[in-house]
């Protein structure tokens, strides 16, 4: 009787937690088996480059052509000349400019002195700020122009020099081997897609200085393009 008095509570002390623990473990086992596939597949979004709403088929086509057809992806640094531009763009100048309207917040307009292709201090700062503001973009677009004063050939050379000045500064400042693969140059001279005066209200390297249709075209239009190219 005394032994029973001793054993009964002890057996109960083992049985109750034992049954509880084994039931809980059984439930966990079932739940693990049911979720084994789910647990091996992550539910989180995968990291990817940006693809903003303005990435229309036309814009992506132009950027791809600049990146590919003009030999830039091969890091040859040739860029698209005005002669190539009409083939690359397949759009009127006005329609070409319209494609960039949604990028207003991303674009910086680097301004140059007349007949010059050198970056001043404000321009250098603006180029660096634009480069640092990359986000998820894959491609840095530099579209340079010249105002219509002077010969077509001279303006072609001038706009080429302006685009290359941006690339040279980026290369020197950041010493990043990827720059040649990420920066696309398109120089348009005075021949194609001249900017209208309304672009004076965009972010310019000479903010506060006089701006009109002539000065705004002595420029390089730079921006990261948030499209998966």
């Amino acid at each position: 009787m005394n032994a029973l008095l001793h054993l009964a509570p002890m057996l109960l002390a083992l049985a109750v937690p034992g049954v509880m623990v084994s039931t809980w473990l059984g439930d966990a086992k079932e739940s693990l088996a049911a979720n084994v596939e789910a647990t091996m597949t992550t539910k989180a979004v995968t990291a990817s480059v940006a693809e903003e709403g303005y990435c229309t088929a036309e814009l992506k086509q132009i950027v791809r052509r600049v990146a590919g057809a003009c030999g830039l992806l091969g890091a040859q640094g040739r860029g698209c000349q005005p002669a190539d531009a009409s083939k690359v763009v397949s759009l009127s100048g006005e329609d070409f400019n319209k494609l960039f309207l949604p990028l207003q917040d991303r674009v910086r307009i680097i301004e140059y002195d007349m007949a010059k292709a050198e970056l001043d201090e404000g321009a250098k700062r603006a180029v660096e700020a634009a480069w640092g503001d990359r986000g998820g973009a894959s491609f840095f677009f530099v579209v340079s122009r010249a105002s219509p004063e002077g010969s077509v050939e001279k303006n072609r050379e001038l706009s080429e020099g302006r685009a290359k000045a941006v690339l040279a500064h980026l290369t020197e400042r950041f010493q990043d081997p990827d720059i040649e693969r990420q920066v696309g140059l398109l120089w348009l001279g005075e021949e194609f897609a001249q900017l209208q005066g309304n672009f004076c209200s965009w972010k310019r390297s000479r903010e506060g200085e006089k701006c009109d249709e002539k000065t705004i075209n002595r420029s390089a239009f730079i921006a990261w393009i948030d499209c998966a190219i």
Partner: protein
Amino acid sequence: MQTSDFPTEPDALGVDAPRDLGRTETVTRMPEDRAPRRRGRAWPWLVFVAALLGCYYAAISTHSFITWLDGQEHAISCSVVPGADAATGATGCRTAMLSTYSSLFRTSMWGGIPVSLAALGVFAFIAGFGVYLGLKKDLTRRDTGFLLLATLLPVGTSTAYAIISATKLGEFCTVCIGIYASSGAAFILALVGHFRAPRAAEGTPVPWGRWFLWFFEGVVLVGALIGIYVAVAPTDRPSVTKGCGELVKVEDEAKILLPMPTGDARDPAPRTPAIAVLDPLCPACRAFDRRLEASELDQRLSMQVLLFPLDSKCNWMVKSSLHPGACVVSEAMLCAPASAPRILEYAFSEQQRLLELGKTNEAALKADLEQHFPDVKGCVGSAAAKARVNKSLRWAVANALPVMTPQLFVGQTRICDEDTDLGLEYTLTKRLEAAH
């Protein structure tokens, strides 16, 4: 009927009734031979109640632990009030449960054996033993002495765990406090019960054999519970061996993977390359870092950190800033790679304050970092620093990593998320074995 000026009969608790020698009182005397049997008999029942309360808290703690064995996150019961709703998110109970101190043998069994299971066994034994003593007719101090000794085990363990909570975890788990209180109550009641119990007759030898048998029963009870746990706990875990994906582009041309030295750098033991994907202001990353450090397995890894701030200021993959200010701290780390381990440690230890600064005054956050780490001055906020953070994020894109932190890659294999909390030590040990 007789009048008496003798002390009255002790009550069932063994407490003498107050004497009043100034007046006579009529009492019924018990027979002399029955008095010792009743003396102090209620105390073991009170110990039983305290142990039952301990069983309750240990059981809910064990239940919370077991629910996580399926690799999913579950709500954790974290209230001393019986029946309160379980809580999700960061609580002291979650911190305690996920800490390396919550279970034993974590490297040989996924999650290990929860300490609360052993506590459940010990409290169940004390409860059962309390019932036995409460019913025992010839209760003496020989019996209550063993009960008192038995209650010392949960008291000692509770003291040790309270110290660990205060010094190592920095947080107290409310259910654990319930266990500590039950342990203390059981001990105090057993102590009082022991001194209220009648002494054994003069010349009675110490019952070593009986004590050994009781001790053996306690060990068997706790051992049986652990045996059930080991036998029934889920073991089929393909995630441990297969992992959850591989790195596809491990080259680090831009030098954005930051080395994080661990342990003694002079130790010649081979280390396995590992990459942790962290956000310096992410509480889960801090908890992960602390767990890894406590496990000491980090000393077998050659660890590098990829910064992946979940802050929309620099990370286009998140639509809102989960951890505002994380971009600034990441810039600081990438500006001064040599100081990066110290900056990360600072960010983890001051996380709440830095998060608040990041949310309200980013310039103050930048100034705070420059004050503590002068070598980042002039770099944080620059285009070059932003470009480096961007490169870090692009490394994640190149490897198609999930947009989440923390993540751990051992060699090139990603440890599954469900294996980075309770199963971290087990999984890491298996991965390290596989790597060598």
